[in-house]
Protein backbone atom coordinates (compact mmCIF):
# COMPACT_ATOMS: atom_id res chain seq x y z
CA UNK A 1 0.00 0.00 0.00
CA UNK A 2 1.30 3.44 -0.83
CA UNK A 3 0.16 6.92 0.08
CA UNK A 4 -1.02 9.45 -2.46
CA UNK A 5 0.19 12.79 -1.12
CA UNK A 6 -0.58 16.47 -1.56
CA UNK A 7 1.84 17.40 -4.33
CA UNK A 8 3.96 20.49 -4.45
CA UNK A 9 2.73 22.56 -7.39
CA UNK A 10 5.47 25.11 -7.15
CA UNK A 11 8.34 25.93 -4.85
CA UNK A 12 6.29 28.49 -2.97
CA UNK A 13 3.36 26.17 -2.25
CA UNK A 14 3.03 25.13 1.36
CA UNK A 15 -0.57 24.01 1.59
CA UNK A 16 -3.42 23.10 -0.73
CA UNK A 17 -7.16 22.87 -0.24
CA UNK A 18 -8.80 19.70 -1.47
CA UNK A 19 -11.68 21.04 -3.57
CA UNK A 20 -12.95 17.90 -5.23
CA UNK A 21 -12.24 14.21 -5.40
CA UNK A 22 -12.63 12.71 -8.88
CA UNK A 23 -12.19 9.17 -7.56
CA UNK A 24 -13.67 7.20 -4.70
CA UNK A 25 -12.59 4.16 -2.74
CA UNK A 26 -12.59 1.12 -4.98
CA UNK A 27 -11.78 3.05 -8.15
CA UNK A 28 -8.93 1.82 -10.28
CA UNK A 29 -6.34 4.45 -11.11
CA UNK A 30 -3.36 4.45 -13.38
CA UNK A 31 -0.27 6.53 -13.70
CA UNK A 32 -1.24 9.97 -14.95
CA UNK A 33 -4.95 9.87 -14.07
CA UNK A 34 -6.42 13.10 -12.76
CA UNK A 35 -7.85 12.19 -9.36
CA UNK A 36 -8.55 15.41 -7.50
CA UNK A 37 -8.83 19.18 -7.79
CA UNK A 38 -6.73 21.22 -5.41
CA UNK A 39 -7.09 24.94 -4.79
CA UNK A 40 -3.81 26.74 -4.41
CA UNK A 41 -2.86 30.40 -4.41
CA UNK A 42 -2.62 30.01 -8.17
CA UNK A 43 -6.14 28.72 -8.56
CA UNK A 44 -7.81 25.35 -8.90
CA UNK A 45 -5.44 22.71 -10.22
CA UNK A 46 -6.29 19.20 -11.26
CA UNK A 47 -3.80 16.83 -9.78
CA UNK A 48 -2.58 13.57 -11.19
CA UNK A 49 -1.66 10.35 -9.51
CA UNK A 50 1.56 8.55 -10.32
CA UNK A 51 0.67 5.20 -8.84
CA UNK A 52 -1.27 2.44 -10.54
CA UNK A 53 -3.71 0.40 -8.55
CA UNK A 54 -6.87 0.72 -6.51
CA UNK A 55 -7.92 3.63 -4.32
CA UNK A 56 -8.39 1.93 -0.97
CA UNK A 57 -9.30 4.82 1.24
CA UNK A 58 -9.71 8.57 1.03
CA UNK A 59 -7.99 10.21 3.97
CA UNK A 60 -8.69 13.90 3.41
CA UNK A 61 -12.18 15.17 2.78
CA UNK A 62 -13.17 17.99 0.46
CA UNK A 63 -12.70 21.44 1.91
CA UNK A 64 -9.71 20.45 4.03
CA UNK A 65 -6.55 22.54 3.76
CA UNK A 66 -3.48 20.41 4.30
CA UNK A 67 0.31 20.87 4.00
CA UNK A 68 2.24 19.59 1.01
CA UNK A 69 3.19 15.96 1.60
CA UNK A 70 0.06 15.05 3.57
CA UNK A 71 -1.34 11.62 2.70
CA UNK A 72 -4.56 12.20 0.80
CA UNK A 73 -5.46 8.60 0.03
CA UNK A 74 -4.20 5.05 0.32
CA UNK A 75 -3.50 3.23 -2.91
CA UNK A 76 -3.27 -0.54 -3.22
CA UNK A 77 -1.08 -2.06 -5.88
CA UNK A 78 -2.80 -4.47 -8.25
CA UNK A 79 -1.34 -7.45 -6.41
CA UNK A 80 -2.52 -6.14 -3.07
CA UNK A 81 -5.93 -5.36 -4.46
CA UNK A 82 -6.19 -8.82 -5.93
CA UNK A 83 -5.17 -10.49 -2.70
CA UNK A 84 -7.77 -8.52 -0.80
CA UNK A 85 -6.88 -6.13 1.94
CA UNK A 86 -7.52 -8.70 4.63
CA UNK A 87 -5.32 -11.38 3.10
CA UNK A 88 -2.23 -10.46 5.04
CA UNK A 89 -1.74 -13.05 7.73
CA UNK A 90 -0.87 -11.12 10.85
CA UNK A 91 -0.80 -13.20 13.99
CA UNK A 92 -2.87 -11.56 16.70
CA UNK A 93 -1.42 -11.07 20.13
CA UNK A 94 -2.61 -13.90 22.32
CA UNK A 95 -6.10 -13.27 23.58
CA UNK A 96 -6.39 -13.22 27.36
CA UNK A 97 -7.89 -16.38 28.80
CA UNK A 98 -11.52 -16.16 29.71
CA UNK A 99 -11.93 -15.09 33.31
CA UNK A 100 -15.39 -16.51 33.52
CA UNK A 101 -17.81 -17.88 31.05
CA UNK A 102 -21.37 -16.88 31.53
CA UNK A 103 -23.50 -19.79 30.48
CA UNK A 104 -26.74 -18.64 28.96
CA UNK A 105 -29.85 -20.46 30.07
CA UNK A 106 -30.93 -20.90 26.53
CA UNK A 107 -28.67 -21.59 23.63
CA UNK A 108 -30.85 -19.42 21.45
CA UNK A 109 -30.92 -15.71 22.15
CA UNK A 110 -33.85 -13.53 21.23
CA UNK A 111 -33.39 -12.26 17.71
CA UNK A 112 -32.66 -8.56 17.49
CA UNK A 113 -35.54 -6.69 15.87
CA UNK A 114 -35.01 -5.76 12.25
CA UNK A 115 -33.72 -2.27 11.51
CA UNK A 116 -34.57 -0.18 14.48
CA UNK A 117 -33.40 3.37 14.21
CA UNK A 118 -32.12 4.19 17.67
CA UNK A 119 -33.71 7.24 19.20
CA UNK A 120 -31.60 10.34 18.69
CA UNK A 121 -29.83 11.86 21.60
CA UNK A 122 -31.89 14.47 23.36
CA UNK A 123 -32.38 17.63 21.35
CA UNK A 124 -30.41 16.30 18.43
CA UNK A 125 -31.91 16.21 14.98
CA UNK A 126 -31.92 12.97 13.06
CA UNK A 127 -29.99 13.64 9.86
CA UNK A 128 -28.42 11.09 7.55
CA UNK A 129 -24.66 11.41 7.05
CA UNK A 130 -25.19 12.14 3.36
CA UNK A 131 -27.70 14.89 4.12
CA UNK A 132 -25.56 16.40 6.86
CA UNK A 133 -22.53 16.67 4.66
CA UNK A 134 -24.47 17.98 1.66
CA UNK A 135 -26.20 20.66 3.75
CA UNK A 136 -22.91 21.73 5.24
CA UNK A 137 -21.40 22.16 1.82
CA UNK A 138 -24.30 24.30 0.65
CA UNK A 139 -24.54 26.20 3.91
CA UNK A 140 -28.15 25.18 4.39
CA UNK A 141 -29.63 25.25 7.89
CA UNK A 142 -30.92 21.79 8.74
CA UNK A 143 -33.34 23.12 11.34
CA UNK A 144 -35.60 24.41 8.58
CA UNK A 145 -35.96 21.04 6.85
CA UNK A 146 -38.64 18.41 7.34
CA UNK A 147 -37.25 14.91 7.05
CA UNK A 148 -38.84 12.18 4.95
CA UNK A 149 -36.37 9.38 5.68
CA UNK A 150 -36.66 6.51 8.15
CA UNK A 151 -38.06 7.75 11.49
CA UNK A 152 -38.51 11.16 9.82
CA UNK A 153 -34.76 11.59 9.46
CA UNK A 154 -33.57 14.26 7.06
CA UNK A 155 -32.04 12.60 4.03
CA UNK A 156 -30.09 14.01 1.13
CA UNK A 157 -33.16 14.30 -1.08
CA UNK A 158 -34.75 16.59 1.52
CA UNK A 159 -31.78 18.93 1.38
CA UNK A 160 -31.85 18.86 -2.42
CA UNK A 161 -35.54 19.82 -2.32
CA UNK A 162 -34.86 22.78 -0.04
CA UNK A 163 -31.99 23.85 -2.23
CA UNK A 164 -34.20 23.72 -5.32
CA UNK A 165 -36.87 25.77 -3.57
CA UNK A 166 -34.34 28.31 -2.41
CA UNK A 167 -32.73 28.72 -5.80
CA UNK A 168 -35.15 30.54 -8.14
CA UNK A 169 -35.62 33.93 -6.43
CA UNK A 170 -31.90 34.50 -6.16
CA UNK A 171 -30.74 34.67 -9.77
CA UNK A 172 -33.70 36.80 -10.80
CA UNK A 173 -32.10 39.85 -9.23
CA UNK A 174 -28.84 39.61 -11.10
CA UNK A 175 -27.61 37.17 -13.67
CA UNK A 176 -28.48 33.49 -13.75
CA UNK A 177 -24.85 32.56 -13.72
CA UNK A 178 -22.71 31.64 -10.79
CA UNK A 179 -19.73 33.81 -11.58
CA UNK A 180 -17.58 32.28 -8.87
CA UNK A 181 -18.17 28.80 -10.20
CA UNK A 182 -17.56 30.08 -13.71
CA UNK A 183 -14.27 31.59 -12.56
CA UNK A 184 -13.31 28.24 -11.06
CA UNK A 185 -14.22 26.44 -14.25
CA UNK A 186 -12.24 28.88 -16.39
CA UNK A 187 -9.28 28.53 -14.04
CA UNK A 188 -9.39 24.73 -14.19
CA UNK A 189 -9.83 24.55 -17.95
CA UNK A 190 -7.19 27.15 -18.76
CA UNK A 191 -4.72 25.66 -16.31
CA UNK A 192 -5.25 22.25 -17.84
CA UNK A 193 -4.88 23.71 -21.32
CA UNK A 194 -1.58 25.36 -20.56
CA UNK A 195 -0.36 22.29 -18.73
CA UNK A 196 -1.28 19.75 -21.37
CA UNK A 197 -1.56 21.45 -24.73
CA UNK A 198 1.60 22.45 -26.57
CA UNK A 199 0.28 25.60 -28.22
CA UNK A 200 1.84 27.16 -31.25
CA UNK A 201 0.88 30.63 -32.43
CA UNK A 202 0.54 32.30 -35.83
CA UNK A 203 -0.58 35.76 -36.85
CA UNK A 204 -1.94 37.14 -40.09
CA UNK A 205 -3.07 40.68 -40.97
CA UNK A 206 -6.25 40.61 -43.01
CA UNK A 207 -7.47 43.57 -45.05
CA UNK A 208 -11.17 43.88 -44.27
CA UNK A 209 -11.79 47.08 -46.22
CA UNK A 210 -13.87 45.18 -48.76
CA UNK A 211 -15.87 43.56 -45.99
CA UNK A 212 -16.61 46.92 -44.39
CA UNK A 213 -17.63 48.46 -47.70
CA UNK A 214 -19.88 45.49 -48.44
CA UNK A 215 -21.40 45.70 -44.95
CA UNK A 216 -22.06 49.44 -45.31
CA UNK A 217 -23.84 48.87 -48.63
CA UNK A 218 -25.80 45.89 -47.36
CA UNK A 219 -26.82 47.41 -44.03
CA UNK A 220 -27.83 50.76 -45.54
CA UNK A 221 -30.89 49.12 -47.02
CA UNK A 222 -31.78 47.13 -43.89
CA UNK A 223 -33.59 47.93 -40.67
CA UNK A 224 -31.43 47.56 -37.55
CA UNK A 225 -32.73 44.11 -36.64
CA UNK A 226 -31.41 42.56 -39.82
CA UNK A 227 -28.09 44.38 -40.05
CA UNK A 228 -24.87 42.38 -40.10
CA UNK A 229 -21.67 42.87 -38.13
CA UNK A 230 -18.10 42.25 -39.21
CA UNK A 231 -17.89 39.56 -36.53
CA UNK A 232 -20.41 37.40 -38.38
CA UNK A 233 -18.33 37.57 -41.56
CA UNK A 234 -15.19 36.55 -39.71
CA UNK A 235 -16.90 33.60 -37.97
CA UNK A 236 -18.34 32.41 -41.25
CA UNK A 237 -14.90 32.75 -42.83
CA UNK A 238 -13.34 30.68 -40.06
CA UNK A 239 -16.00 27.99 -40.46
CA UNK A 240 -15.48 27.77 -44.21
CA UNK A 241 -11.71 27.63 -43.82
CA UNK A 242 -12.14 24.92 -41.17
CA UNK A 243 -14.00 22.82 -43.69
CA UNK A 244 -10.86 22.81 -45.85
CA UNK A 245 -8.51 22.32 -42.90
CA UNK A 246 -10.08 19.71 -40.63
CA UNK A 247 -6.97 19.42 -38.44
CA UNK A 248 -8.20 22.45 -36.50
CA UNK A 249 -11.71 21.17 -35.88
CA UNK A 250 -12.21 18.43 -33.31
CA UNK A 251 -10.89 17.05 -30.09
CA UNK A 252 -7.65 15.72 -28.71
CA UNK A 253 -8.58 12.89 -26.39
CA UNK A 254 -6.77 9.93 -24.90
CA UNK A 255 -3.62 10.49 -26.83
CA UNK A 256 -5.04 11.13 -30.25
CA UNK A 257 -6.81 13.69 -32.38
CA UNK A 258 -10.40 12.98 -33.34
CA UNK A 259 -11.55 15.24 -36.19
CA UNK A 260 -15.14 16.41 -35.82
CA UNK A 261 -17.63 15.70 -38.59
CA UNK A 262 -19.47 18.96 -37.96
CA UNK A 263 -18.35 22.55 -37.47
CA UNK A 264 -19.71 23.98 -34.21
CA UNK A 265 -17.98 27.30 -33.64
CA UNK A 266 -17.68 28.45 -30.05
CA UNK A 267 -18.04 32.20 -29.73
CA UNK A 268 -16.21 33.62 -26.73
CA UNK A 269 -18.63 35.98 -24.99
CA UNK A 270 -17.64 38.19 -22.07
CA UNK A 271 -20.09 38.10 -19.19
CA UNK A 272 -20.95 41.41 -17.57
CA UNK A 273 -19.42 41.44 -14.11
CA UNK A 274 -16.61 39.13 -15.10
CA UNK A 275 -16.39 35.72 -16.58
CA UNK A 276 -16.43 34.28 -20.01
CA UNK A 277 -18.36 31.62 -21.84
CA UNK A 278 -17.87 30.20 -25.29
CA UNK A 279 -21.17 28.59 -26.31
CA UNK A 280 -21.32 27.10 -29.76
CA UNK A 281 -23.28 27.97 -32.87
CA UNK A 282 -23.98 24.72 -34.61
CA UNK A 283 -23.07 23.93 -38.23
CA UNK A 284 -21.82 27.44 -38.96
CA UNK A 285 -20.44 26.44 -42.35
CA UNK A 286 -23.96 25.67 -43.51
CA UNK A 287 -25.66 28.82 -42.20
CA UNK A 288 -26.34 31.87 -44.35
CA UNK A 289 -24.86 35.10 -43.01
CA UNK A 290 -28.34 36.30 -42.05
CA UNK A 291 -29.08 33.12 -40.10
CA UNK A 292 -25.67 33.23 -38.48
CA UNK A 293 -26.24 36.83 -37.40
CA UNK A 294 -29.59 35.93 -35.87
CA UNK A 295 -27.99 33.05 -33.97
CA UNK A 296 -25.15 35.25 -32.75
CA UNK A 297 -27.49 37.92 -31.42
CA UNK A 298 -29.62 35.31 -29.71
CA UNK A 299 -26.57 33.61 -28.23
CA UNK A 300 -25.01 36.79 -26.90
CA UNK A 301 -28.24 37.87 -25.26
CA UNK A 302 -28.93 34.48 -23.71
CA UNK A 303 -25.36 33.99 -22.54
CA UNK A 304 -25.29 37.32 -20.81
CA UNK A 305 -28.60 36.45 -19.15
CA UNK A 306 -27.14 33.13 -18.04
CA UNK A 307 -29.25 30.92 -20.22
CA UNK A 308 -26.79 28.80 -22.15
CA UNK A 309 -27.84 25.37 -23.26
CA UNK A 310 -25.86 22.33 -22.28
CA UNK A 311 -25.31 21.30 -25.88
CA UNK A 312 -23.94 24.72 -26.73
CA UNK A 313 -21.30 24.33 -24.06
CA UNK A 314 -20.45 20.72 -24.55
CA UNK A 315 -19.91 20.18 -28.23
CA UNK A 316 -17.86 23.10 -29.52
CA UNK A 317 -15.37 21.94 -32.13
CA UNK A 318 -13.36 25.17 -32.59
CA UNK A 319 -13.51 28.54 -30.86
CA UNK A 320 -13.33 32.13 -32.11
CA UNK A 321 -12.44 34.90 -29.67
CA UNK A 322 -12.91 38.52 -30.60
CA UNK A 323 -12.44 41.46 -28.28
CA UNK A 324 -14.51 43.75 -30.52
CA UNK A 325 -13.86 47.27 -31.68
CA UNK A 326 -12.91 48.47 -28.24
CA UNK A 327 -10.29 45.81 -27.84
CA UNK A 328 -6.68 45.59 -28.91
CA UNK A 329 -5.09 44.88 -32.25
CA UNK A 330 -4.29 41.26 -31.62
CA UNK A 331 -4.99 38.52 -29.13
CA UNK A 332 -3.73 34.99 -28.73
CA UNK A 333 -6.30 32.65 -27.25
CA UNK A 334 -5.80 29.75 -24.90
CA UNK A 335 -7.26 26.57 -26.38
CA UNK A 336 -10.26 25.20 -24.52
CA UNK A 337 -9.56 21.50 -23.99
CA UNK A 338 -10.24 19.09 -25.58
CA UNK A 339 -10.49 21.39 -28.63
CA UNK A 340 -7.38 21.87 -30.71
CA UNK A 341 -7.58 25.46 -31.97
CA UNK A 342 -8.78 28.95 -31.15
CA UNK A 343 -8.85 31.83 -33.61
CA UNK A 344 -8.26 35.31 -32.15
CA UNK A 345 -9.69 38.37 -33.89
CA UNK A 346 -8.34 41.82 -33.06
CA UNK A 347 -10.14 45.10 -33.65
CA UNK A 348 -10.22 46.65 -37.09
CA UNK A 349 -7.77 49.56 -37.34
CA UNK A 350 -6.87 51.91 -40.17
CA UNK A 351 -3.33 51.15 -41.26
CA UNK A 352 -1.21 52.09 -44.26
CA UNK A 353 -1.02 49.30 -46.78
CA UNK A 354 0.53 49.00 -50.20
CA UNK A 355 -2.24 48.40 -52.72
CA UNK A 356 -1.41 48.20 -56.42
CA UNK A 357 1.99 49.83 -55.83
CA UNK A 358 0.58 52.76 -53.82
CA UNK A 359 0.30 53.34 -50.14
CA UNK A 360 -3.34 53.40 -49.11
CA UNK A 361 -5.22 53.58 -45.84
CA UNK A 362 -6.93 50.27 -45.32
CA UNK A 363 -8.91 48.67 -42.54
CA UNK A 364 -6.87 45.81 -41.11
CA UNK A 365 -7.78 43.06 -38.68
CA UNK A 366 -5.07 40.89 -37.16
CA UNK A 367 -6.26 37.31 -37.05
CA UNK A 368 -4.30 34.85 -34.94
CA UNK A 369 -4.31 31.12 -34.49
CA UNK A 370 -3.42 29.22 -31.33
CA UNK A 371 -3.32 25.55 -32.21
CA UNK A 372 -2.46 22.26 -30.57
CA UNK A 373 0.87 21.05 -31.91
CA UNK A 374 -0.13 17.46 -31.14
CA UNK A 375 -2.89 17.73 -33.74
CA UNK A 376 -1.40 19.99 -36.41
CA UNK A 377 1.76 21.73 -37.52
CA UNK A 378 2.60 25.33 -38.30
CA UNK A 379 2.56 24.84 -42.04
CA UNK A 380 -1.08 23.75 -42.01
CA UNK A 381 -1.83 26.53 -39.53
CA UNK A 382 -0.37 29.13 -41.85
CA UNK A 383 -2.43 27.86 -44.79
CA UNK A 384 -5.54 27.87 -42.59
CA UNK A 385 -5.05 31.50 -41.52
CA UNK A 386 -4.25 32.58 -45.05
CA UNK A 387 -7.42 30.88 -46.24
CA UNK A 388 -9.50 32.85 -43.73
CA UNK A 389 -7.94 36.05 -45.06
CA UNK A 390 -8.66 35.06 -48.63
CA UNK A 391 -12.28 34.23 -47.92
CA UNK A 392 -12.76 37.67 -46.35
CA UNK A 393 -11.77 39.33 -49.64
CA UNK A 394 -15.06 38.16 -51.14
CA UNK A 395 -17.63 38.96 -48.47
CA UNK A 396 -20.52 38.57 -50.89
CA UNK A 397 -19.66 34.90 -51.26
CA UNK A 398 -19.63 34.12 -47.54
Amino acid at each position, binding site marked *: MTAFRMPSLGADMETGTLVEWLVKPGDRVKHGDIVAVVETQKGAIEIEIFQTGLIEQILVGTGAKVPVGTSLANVLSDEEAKAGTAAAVVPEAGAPPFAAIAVPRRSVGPPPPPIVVPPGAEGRMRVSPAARRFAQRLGIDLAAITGTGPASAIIRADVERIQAEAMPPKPKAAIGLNLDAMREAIAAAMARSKREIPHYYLQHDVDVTLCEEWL*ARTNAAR*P*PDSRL*LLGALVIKGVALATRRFPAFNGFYREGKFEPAAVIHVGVAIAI*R*GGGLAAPAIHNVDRLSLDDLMVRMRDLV*QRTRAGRIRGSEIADTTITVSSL*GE*RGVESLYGVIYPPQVAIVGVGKATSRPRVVDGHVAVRSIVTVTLSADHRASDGHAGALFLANIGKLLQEPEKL
Partner: protein
Amino acid sequence: MSSVEIHSVVCEELNNIAPEVDMQSVNPSADLREALDIDSMDFLNFITAIHRRLGVDIPELDYPKLITLDGAITYLQKKLGGGNKG
Protein backbone atom coordinates in the same frame (compact mmCIF):
# COMPACT_ATOMS: atom_id res chain seq x y z
CA MET B 1 -42.40 63.31 -27.48
CA SER B 2 -40.60 65.27 -24.79
CA SER B 3 -36.89 65.01 -24.14
CA VAL B 4 -37.70 63.61 -20.70
CA GLU B 5 -39.70 60.79 -22.26
CA ILE B 6 -36.97 60.08 -24.80
CA HIS B 7 -34.40 60.12 -22.01
CA SER B 8 -36.41 57.58 -20.08
CA VAL B 9 -36.79 55.24 -23.10
CA VAL B 10 -33.06 55.45 -23.90
CA CYS B 11 -32.08 54.76 -20.31
CA GLU B 12 -34.48 51.85 -20.08
CA GLU B 13 -33.11 50.21 -23.22
CA LEU B 14 -29.51 50.77 -22.15
CA ASN B 15 -30.38 49.19 -18.81
CA ASN B 16 -31.71 46.14 -20.58
CA ILE B 17 -28.24 45.71 -22.00
CA ALA B 18 -26.29 46.75 -18.91
CA PRO B 19 -28.67 46.03 -16.02
CA GLU B 20 -26.21 46.78 -13.24
CA VAL B 21 -25.50 50.35 -14.41
CA ASP B 22 -27.18 53.26 -12.62
CA MET B 23 -28.09 55.49 -15.58
CA GLN B 24 -28.43 58.53 -13.31
CA SER B 25 -24.73 58.38 -12.62
CA VAL B 26 -23.66 58.16 -16.26
CA ASN B 27 -21.99 61.30 -17.53
CA PRO B 28 -24.29 62.50 -20.36
CA SER B 29 -21.34 63.38 -22.56
CA ALA B 30 -19.33 60.22 -21.97
CA ASP B 31 -18.86 57.57 -24.66
CA LEU B 32 -21.57 55.02 -23.87
CA ARG B 33 -19.43 52.15 -25.07
CA GLU B 34 -16.84 53.04 -22.43
CA ALA B 35 -19.26 54.05 -19.70
CA LEU B 36 -21.45 50.98 -20.03
CA ASP B 37 -18.82 48.53 -21.25
CA ILE B 38 -20.80 47.56 -24.34
CA ASP B 39 -19.59 46.22 -27.65
CA SER B 40 -20.80 46.47 -31.25
CA MET B 41 -23.35 43.71 -30.73
CA ASP B 42 -24.77 45.48 -27.66
CA PHE B 43 -24.89 48.75 -29.55
CA LEU B 44 -26.70 47.12 -32.45
CA ASN B 45 -29.20 45.67 -30.00
CA PHE B 46 -29.70 49.15 -28.53
CA ILE B 47 -30.30 50.66 -31.96
CA THR B 48 -32.69 47.83 -32.79
CA ALA B 49 -34.65 48.40 -29.58
CA ILE B 50 -34.90 52.14 -30.18
CA HIS B 51 -36.06 51.51 -33.72
CA ARG B 52 -38.71 49.14 -32.43
CA ARG B 53 -39.97 51.41 -29.65
CA LEU B 54 -39.79 54.83 -31.27
CA GLY B 55 -40.02 53.89 -34.91
CA VAL B 56 -36.93 55.93 -35.67
CA ASP B 57 -34.74 54.71 -38.49
CA ILE B 58 -31.06 55.04 -37.60
CA PRO B 59 -28.70 54.34 -40.49
CA GLU B 60 -25.25 53.02 -39.66
CA LEU B 61 -23.68 56.28 -40.79
CA ASP B 62 -25.46 58.03 -37.92
CA TYR B 63 -24.15 55.71 -35.21
CA PRO B 64 -21.40 58.14 -34.14
CA LYS B 65 -24.10 60.71 -33.30
CA LEU B 66 -25.57 58.35 -30.71
CA ILE B 67 -22.48 57.40 -28.78
CA THR B 68 -23.22 59.73 -25.88
CA LEU B 69 -26.44 59.98 -23.85
CA ASP B 70 -26.83 63.66 -24.76
CA GLY B 71 -26.06 62.95 -28.41
CA ALA B 72 -28.61 60.16 -28.57
CA ILE B 73 -31.37 62.26 -27.03
CA THR B 74 -30.66 65.25 -29.26
CA TYR B 75 -30.57 63.01 -32.35
CA LEU B 76 -33.81 61.23 -31.49
CA GLN B 77 -35.59 64.44 -30.56
CA LYS B 78 -34.64 65.92 -33.92
CA LYS B 79 -35.85 62.82 -35.77
CA LEU B 80 -39.10 62.64 -33.81
CA GLY B 81 -39.80 66.32 -33.55
CA GLY B 82 -39.15 67.18 -37.17
CA GLY B 83 -42.86 67.61 -37.91
CA ASN B 84 -43.46 64.37 -39.70
CA LYS B 85 -42.88 61.40 -37.44
CA GLY B 86 -42.77 58.93 -40.30
